[in-house]
């Protein structure tokens, strides 16, 4: 640890939260690439680690707007796994629903070990929910969708993290996946400039192209996040070299906290050093995606949409 100048972070909320205090204790500049909870930053006065990825509450917020403005749903059932990331997603749903005056028909979490979602989905239907949102990881997205289909539940919108964005989802569920909405942080098709390094730019499309050449398949968001975080750190190190002719931890860190701009992954910008929530991501955006004819289409926000949203599930 003592000879390290900067760190890439582990995958996931729990791991990042676990290493956060070590990083802060030792003072190593880090851009946490895939962590969606706020816990490591919220009120923590972080001084060394910034959040590169976006935050959990943003994941499905857009779907609430979509449900209100396009699907004309009167209420929402929030159903989510009781672990850090889905809790954050549900916080976002709840906050946006309240803000927009959408009635909350059900708000319930379930244990990580749950394997049968049908009682909970039946409960949501009994309570008359028209928009069902939440989830957790892959099994939940599939399980909730199946459970809803099994009881003939008709919804105006069904939006689930994170499994619904997984390409496996449509393979496993086929026709049932049609019309299910999800959330994506990044897609190969999105146009981002990336960093402008000494005149040469590595934009998202360049990254996707070289990834495909190397691995013969489309990159997933975690690869993009890792690459983007790498771009950011490289830039931070360059900046430090330029100013002090060496890799200085303090300068690298300052760059991570002050920089506001774009990587191939999208926008980056965090709460400035010295504030209670320092390091927390504030600029990264999320899209609502929807499976339409076996393809993943961006349907929200409107200005980035690749297709019109479908209303009503199942199709």
């Amino acid at each position, binding site marked *: 640890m003592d000879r390290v100048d900067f760190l890439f972070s582990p995958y996931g909320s729990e791991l990042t939260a676990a290493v956060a205090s*070590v990083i802060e204790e030792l003072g190593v500049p880090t851009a946490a690439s895939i962590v969606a909870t706020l816990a490591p930053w919220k009120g923590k006065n972080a001084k060394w680690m910034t959040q590169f990825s976006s935050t959990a509450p943003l994941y499905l917020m857009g779907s609430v707007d979509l449900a209100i403005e396009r699907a004309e749903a009167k209420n929402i059932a929030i159903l989510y796994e009781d672990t850090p990331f889905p809790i954050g997603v549900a916080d976002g749903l709840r906050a946006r629903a309240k803000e927009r005056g959408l009635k909350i028909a059900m708000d319930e979490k379930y244990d990580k070990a749950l394997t049968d979602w049908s009682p909970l989905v039946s409960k949501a239907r009994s309570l008359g929910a028209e928009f069902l949102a939440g989830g957790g990881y892959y099994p939940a997205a599939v399980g909730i969708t199946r459970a809803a289909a099994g009881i003939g539940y008709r919804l105006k919108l069904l939006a689930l993290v994170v499994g619904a964005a997984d390409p496996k989802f449509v393979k496993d569920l086929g026709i049932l996946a049609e019309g299910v909405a999800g959330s994506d942080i990044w897609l190969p098709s999105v146009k981002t400039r990336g960093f402008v390094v000494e005149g040469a730019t590595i934009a998202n499309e360049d990254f996707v192209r070289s990834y495909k050449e190397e691995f013969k398949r489309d990159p997933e968001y975690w690869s993009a996040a890792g690459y983007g975080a790498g771009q950011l750190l490289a830039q931070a190190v360059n900046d430090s070299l330029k100013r002090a002719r060496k890799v200085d931890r303090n300068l690298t860190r300052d760059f991570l906290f002050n920089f506001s701009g774009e990587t191939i992954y999208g926008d980056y910008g965090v709460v400035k050093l010295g504030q209670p929530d320092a390091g927390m991501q504030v600029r990264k955006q999320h899209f609502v995606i929807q499976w339409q004819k076996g393809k993943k289409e961006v349907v929200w926000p409107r200005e980035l949409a690749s297709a019109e949203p479908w209303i009503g599930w199942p199709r």
Partner: protein
Amino acid sequence: MREDSPSSADRAAEARPEIVWERVDRRVRRALVWSLPLILLFALAILPYMASAYTVTLTFLVFFWVATAQSWNLFSGYTGYVNFGYVGLIGVGAYTTAILIGKFGAHWLLAVGAAGAVTAAFGFLIGIPFLRAHGIYFAIAMLGLAEGLRVLFSMDLMAPLTGGGAGIGFISGMSLAAKYYAMGLVALLSTAVVFLVANSRFGLQLLTIREDELAAQVMGINTTSKKLMAFTLCAFLTGLAGGLYAAYVNYLVPATMFVTAYYTLIPIVMATFGGLGTTMGPVVGAVLFTIISEAIWARFVFLHLVIFGAVLIIIILFMPQGIIPWLQDRRILPRTRWL
């Protein structure tokens, strides 16, 4: 003619009634008995100043496993009641520390001490009903308890303290050396307690319960209160170890803290391998398994645990008494109360 290779120890034991160890010159033996522990203790004491952070951390983990294997042994090894809910005790201790430091800003020393006390109280309270259940029912109930605690700790009811499913993070304010020494002391304390129990009337009473609980009752032993005492003691030591372990983990989430296939399994395998109801068995098991697994298996998460499971089966089938009594039976180690 002398046979020194361990593979021929069996034959050696049959051929010669004396113990291998006793063939060593008496003065050498005495010098070894006194100097070896001292040298070891000294080496462990200066380790944080000599070795890399990695080695210190690994030794810290050895201490943790010694303390937990020893505590598991103290109750289950001596009474024969299988504690499958052991992870629950570690969890209670760990959460106590995390809550006291994270929510109330307590000093770690206070928090870890409180972890021992709270876990002991918890053990005492659940021991009263649980220890009424015999053998298998106790094992089942403890398995249920560990799982129940995991769910309980993630419920809204407890969320103001435990952070619910989102978990609780904190900065312990302990340096690596402080964690190391503290855990070392807990390991030492656990071993000392087991030693004292092993060589006491109380220890004999516990062993009687293990052999035949009904007979123990007939002999006038209040088996319930003896079991309860041992269980509370086990909980106390586990609470200290769990409390310090929390300072190492820094961030507790019920889903990763209450993992039976890890925190219950490993102490059981270590203690059983070394020898249940012995003093040094769990220490030997813990040291051996931590080092071997770190060196060889740890890179393969699942395989690592498969091996732990396989070792457990092999011990139960072929060496149920554990390595130390096994060596004693073959007269490689002396029968002494120190082991």
